[in-house]
């Protein structure tokens, strides 16, 4: 009898959880006079990837993507971020709606050739996972203002750069839909659950 009560309690609690809950949309909202809501969007950008190809928002048209910030000679958190991002890559490598965008915050050292070798050594395909370089200030700026993460010079940090280990999930409308610690396996588990949820939003 007692167990029955517990069981009913558990079932009730379960049913209280909203089903098909959509992922939050991050950032400041703006409501226009006409009543439309304008969400925070990733700003325009133009970078170069490991194949010397131009990468712009058009590259990610009709795709969701995961972004991060790293540098190839980073001695601290980047290797573990790449290990974790590789899990995302492996899971979605055959899904044409998913891409990955890794920004180098050390573009002076991380030239196209360095990024090319890095991606090849990691064993990933460049039409799925873009490693980009470009103007350092542009990369720092888009990190801070569009992706809401820390990316800056810091002589006191190991490797000379201070940057967050965040993975940022971006939807097809260039809106941020999730922020995760890319150094922790369970956070990346959550990211992949959220990616599945986000992909469902586009199923018609």
């Amino acid at each position: 009898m007692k167990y029955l009560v517990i069981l009913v309690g558990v079932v009730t609690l379960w049913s209280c959880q909203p089903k098909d809950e959509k992922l939050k949309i991050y950032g400041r909202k703006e409501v226009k006079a006409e009543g439309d809501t304008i969400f925070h969007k990733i700003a325009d950008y133009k970078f170069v990837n490991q194949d010397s190809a131009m990468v712009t928002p058009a590259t990610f048209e009709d795709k969701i993507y995961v972004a991060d910030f790293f540098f190839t000679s980073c001695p601290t958190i980047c290797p573990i971020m790449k290990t974790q991002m590789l899990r995302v890559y492996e899971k979605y490598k055959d899904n044409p709606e998913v891409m990955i965008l890794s920004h180098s915050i050390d573009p002076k050292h991380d030239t196209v050739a360095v990024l090319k070798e890095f991606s090849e050594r990691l064993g990933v395909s460049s039409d799925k996972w873009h490693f980009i370089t470009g103007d350092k200030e542009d990369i720092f700026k888009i990190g801070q203002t569009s992706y809401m993460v820390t990316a800056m010079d810091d002589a006191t940090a190991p490797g000379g750069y201070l940057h967050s280990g965040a993975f940022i999930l971006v939807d097809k409308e260039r809106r941020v839909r999730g922020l995760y610690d890319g150094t922790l396996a369970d956070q990346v588990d959550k990211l992949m659950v959220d990616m599945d949820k986000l992909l469902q939003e586009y199923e018609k």
Partner: protein
Amino acid sequence: MKNKFLIIAAITMMACTGKKDTQSASVADDVKFEQYMVEGQQLYTIHCSNCHQVNGEGLGRLYPPLSKSDYLLEDIDRAICIIKNGQEGSIMVNGVVFNQPMPAVTTLKKLEIAEIATYIYNSWGNEKGMVSIDKVDQALTDCSNQP
């Protein structure tokens, strides 16, 4: 129970090396070995596993494996120096060229290096036995003498 087996196995192996140590000394050594393995694993997690991975298999062609790595197994002194001083330039590990710099961890004490070395030399299929502080001391003296 499993530990007991390990101890017995270790004693048997020690006996095979033809050492004249008494049995009680072997048991003391074995306890020390276990301590080094436990401490070594913790230090490995902090300082090494980001790149070389928890399972010692490395990452792609970026970070070389430690597990059954010919480069690691053929020279313990060299590995001790690399743990302390880092390394740059390309190396060949199990037939694959790696060329990512490894940072020095200058803060590591000799005991800690011995613990890390003992852990990596006795995990994931590696079986080189304990790396003592004396061994580390000697290796570090030699590598700092190099030009």
